[in-house]
């Protein structure tokens, strides 16, 4: 089936097998391998992207369902060569160890702080329930997100 999906501002028209998941479309059709497959069972959030600005686990949607939509992946978060503040905050706070969960964590957190500037630590921890990290114990991830949330509230 023919789909037209805009990814990181670029329109891609492709003929896909209907059973292609969005995450396969991104990784295998478009070579955007920043988006990870962790659990492949909708639990871990490693595959999180934005669809029309909303967070989505891209292993849980067919590419045909995203026909006509705008997708942002971790590769599209930086603007004009500048890291998104959430990317910078993960860097500064060392919000990662192996880095496998990081693209999903950053995509989920970026949407959360956009919608909830000034979020508390408790709200951040609660929100990140859909993103699992096997390495960090979450401490520095939460610190990174809080830094951006505080800055967003101040601006």
């Amino acid at each position: 089936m023919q789909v037209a999906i805009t990814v990181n501002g670029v329109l891609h028209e492709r003929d896909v097998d209907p059973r292609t998941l969005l995450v396969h479309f991104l990784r295998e059709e478009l070579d955007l391998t920043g988006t990870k497959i962790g659990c492949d069972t909708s639990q871990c959030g490693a595959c999180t992207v934005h669809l029309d600005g909303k967070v989505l686990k891209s292993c849980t949607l067919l590419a045909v369902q995203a026909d006509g939509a705008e997708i942002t992946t971790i590769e599209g978060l930086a603007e004009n060569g500048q890291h998104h503040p959430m990317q910078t905050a993960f860097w500064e706070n060392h919000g990662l160890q192996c880095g496998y969960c990081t693209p999903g964590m950053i995509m989920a957190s970026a949407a959360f702080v956009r919608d909830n500037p000034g979020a508390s630590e408790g709200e951040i921890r609660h929100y990140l329930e859909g993103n699992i990290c096997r390495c960090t114990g979450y401490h520095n991830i939460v610190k990174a997100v809080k830094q951006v949330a505080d800055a967003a509230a101040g601006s």
Partner: protein
Amino acid sequence: MWPNKFDYARAGSVDEALSLISEDGKYLAGGHSLLPVMKLRLDAPGQLVDIGRIPELQGISANGGLTIGAGTTHDAIATSADVQAMCAALASACGQVGDQGVRNFGTLGGNIAHADPASDPPTVLVACGATVNIRGADGSRSVAAQDFFVDLFETALEDGELITSVSLPNCSDCQCAYVKFPHPASRYAIVGVAVCLKMDGGTCAQADVAVGGATVKAVKCAGAEAALAGTTVDEAAVNAAAEAVKADIADWLAGDIAYPESYRQQMAGVYLKRAIAAAQG
């Protein structure tokens, strides 16, 4: 993991969806229950009819009561001022479904058609006397939520039938709440309790109670309701209801190795008390 091969068709209207669906076909709404099931090969429909873009299935209207289109997402329900005002328990239940990604794409219609025993919205729909509105090849029908949920993953839907909307009475004058004991990993309900208390002065004129998670389907709890009705919902009445609810659900218990039936049955009493406290705000 790739799902099985299937034919895909996108419907623009309810009529078109009903005409497209084939014998081994399934409707696809948000895909947030169906696709995980297909990826695990627990189901392999030969056709998917995508109903995710049908305008008639979208949106919430408040007109005396609430009518919620089957294709409305959990997030849209949880954040709707109308739902918060007219059925606070449903807004709360939808706000506790999974995580934000799931709430952004999972729909009320898909949730109740799937009828996972650990789901949240069905418990509120059963407690609050909701009606499920259905269209099929032979026309329309409406089924009380209590009769819609038949058994484990089993509903009153016939082959090819489509849920169009869910109607709810106006609960703005009631004290209603949904509380849940979420599974620490999956966030699904180990136990979920919905209560709706209609107070007349200091006395409870009518109590509606339903339990899910602990049971194979959302169960209306007549014993607990009788223990609350006619009382001032004092400590003695609440304790009596928490005892009665265990008997109400005894024939429907579900459990697993981590949270066995007997444990969930006990927790239903505990969570009923918490739900009443939350309803009384």
